[in-house]
């Protein structure tokens, strides 16, 4: 078959979830496969990265193997796509940037309660860990981004269709509240008071209201600081947003934006003591944040 767009896909440090989301196109995958030719992928046995029209990379960069694989993909793909939130912003594994490598290793291989006579693996067969987890664009030029943890299967399909037809994938710009159909009442009324007296986790509420904005229920929700495009599925599941789409493209960074948005609606003390601002605000985007302590450690201003 001629005219099919050649595609290579890979995963770096990741959970494979984005590739599963690709398979979750289900029957539509068969249509997509008639338009693209998968030359290299974790589900295929070919072991050398070929030159292709499109390279799709899931995951963030965490070790030397990842660095080398990403360089190969950049060199051999005409168009490089950052696939999923880890590739775009670092993702949840990026939270390890809060800790030093020695401490991560010590916990994993020595201190863990089930470990017996532990030591840190450091043999020549296994790649050394990079100091920090990084998204793709901190190492190579990225042409398109598909955020999401994982991205919606429909978004993946639309992006592939755009690439096959020579179009440009759609970029979302608004925040998640645009997609969320929960009602806001108190928030729309000017007031000197916070919306609630305390900040709670959903399991601490007497009743989790399925239609009312989570912030008005006193639950930290990342919607105001998170890019739309996920279909607000967690909200439909009666759980608050945790920011997996990353920040909207025009926001400087997600954690600061969330604090900015929340400081005027939820009690600051509650946020400090009842919540984990770093672990929620920066859960998916710590490696692209300007979280001061980290920037200092990286030697940046």
């Amino acid at each position: 078959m001629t005219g099919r767009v050649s595609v290579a896909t890979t995963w770096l440090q990741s959970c494979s979830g984005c590739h599963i989301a690709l398979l979750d196109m289900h029957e539509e995958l068969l249509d997509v496969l008639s338009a693209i030719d998968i030359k290299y992928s974790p589900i295929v046995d070919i072991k050398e990265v070929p030159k292709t029209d499109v390279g799709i990379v899931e995951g963030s960069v965490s070790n030397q193997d990842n660095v080398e694989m990403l360089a190969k993909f950049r060199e051999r793909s005409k168009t490089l796509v950052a696939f999923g939130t880890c590739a775009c912003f670092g993702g949840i594994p990026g939270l390890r940037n809060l800790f030093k490598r020695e401490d991560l290793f010590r916990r994993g291989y020595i201190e863990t309660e089930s470990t017996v006579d532990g030591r840190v693996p450091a043999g020549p067969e296994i790649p050394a860990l990079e100091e920090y987890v990084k998204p793709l664009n901190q190492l190579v030029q990225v042409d398109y981004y598909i955020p999401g943890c994982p991205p919606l299967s429909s978004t993946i399909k639309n992006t592939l269709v755009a690439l096959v037809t020579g179009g440009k994938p759609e970029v979302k710009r608004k925040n998640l509240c645009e997609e969320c159909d929960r009602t806001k009442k108190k928030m729309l009324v000017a007031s000197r008071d916070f919306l609630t007296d305390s900040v709670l986790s959903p399991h601490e509420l007497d009743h989790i209201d399925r239609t009312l904005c989570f912030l008005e229920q006193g639950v930290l929700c990342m919607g105001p600081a998170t890019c739309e495009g996920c279909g607000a599925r967690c909200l439909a599941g009666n759980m608050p947003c945790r920011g997996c789409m990353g920040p909207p493209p025009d926001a400087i960074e997600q954690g600061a934006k969330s604090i900015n948005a929340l400081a005027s609606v939820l009690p600051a003390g509650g946020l400090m003591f009842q919540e984990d601002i770093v672990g929620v605000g920066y859960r998916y985007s710590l490696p692209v944040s300007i979280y001061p302590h980290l920037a200092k450690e990286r030697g940046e201003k």
Partner: protein
Amino acid sequence: MSTKVEKVMSKTITISPVSRLEGHGKVTIHLDENNKVAESRFHVLEFRGFEKFCEGRLMSEMPVITTRICGICPVSHHLASVKACDDALGVDIPPAAKKLRELMHMGQFIHSHALHFFYLSAPDFVLGPAFDPAKRNILGIIEADPDLAKKAIRLRKFGQNIVERVGGRAIHPVTAIPGGMSKPLSHEDRFVTSKELDDGLELARLALQIGKGVFEKYAEIVPRFAAIKTKYMGLVKDGNLELYDGRLRIINEDGKRLDEFDPKNYLEFLGEHVEDWSYMKFPFYKKYGYPEGLYRVAPLARLNVVEAISTPLANKELVEFKKLGGGHPVHETLYYHYARLIELLYAVERAQELIHDDEIVSEDVRVKVDRRKGEGVGVIEAPRGTLIHHYWADDSGKIERANIIVATAHNNAAINRSVNEVAKEFVKGGKIEEGALNMVEMAVRCYDPCLSCATHALGQMPLEIALLDADGKVVDTVERSI
């Protein structure tokens, strides 16, 4: 198409990447002075550090953080994690919540087992291990048998649909929270799921039928392929197969029960050994120490430790399966695939039972529970074996310490030994025989190792085989290339 064999001055064989696995892996085969296989090592190449960076996070957030350990079995982490939270907070959840969680779990088993059989392993069996590597994959199956491919896609879809309807999202679900579930199941979703499961049951039976045909075809190589005799571990409930909540049973090579305990006490029975050459640790049964305490988990192990399965069709299959062992455990590694398909049938039957239970649409799905200081353990059977989450939280609800033993890790030592068996057969005179590459990979694939999970501690794996001599120098590396 050729197999590239790099000659270097010594004796290790490397296969990298090992493909059609979930994650990154590499195999090295070490030779002795006489160029005979001495030892084989399966290296897991990534580490992510969850056990450290979860410190300081809210315990109640762990069920939606630890899902990111694995995108294939996020439900397992979601549920093991929430069970650990329930335990730490001392809360009993409503019966409907328990049923919903188990239903979500069955959805994941359907998706994950179907994924492994059809997408990752079937290419070896349906197309054959010697089939053109460029087409020996799910895409090749789509080309060779589009009707079968569509059925495979449909079965996996039904599983993912269940996870989405119960868990809010098919990948990385969110609805299991301390005290129960954040939302009930709608009547509409119940109805649609019920319809899909009727179809799903037929598809699961078809998968088993295809599988049995394959095992008959390969009957000659099954007994010797990567075969090892080991102990086995898995959850049981009254002697029955149990995937969501039960007691952990360990049996020896002859099928004799060595222990059966409340999984909360796992630290008394299980330890983890560390080797310098892999980021994946090596769990072992403490009474026997390492490496004598090697045991296996996942489908083959689960069917070996149980006496029966609670659903009729799967139980009938279990009886037939048990005959293979003749009163002893079934040790043949290739029968992992067989056991997996019986579990797939069980998952569909069990999901049907749950969906037909009127309580599944009950609105009473949670109790309110406040944060407090506490320690909790959550244990579940993930598709790839026993999964353990253990947390210590402070009085503000934040994690002080976390310990996680993932399913694939339990099989780590066994994978090494299985690979060694295959290597002994296919590595002759210091060289890898043609076809050995995929044979080694097939041995690894029996275990369906999920290396994303395995390396929750640092990350992933591709496969590469290196052949090393007695001095540890690389003699041979094997990679496939076009």
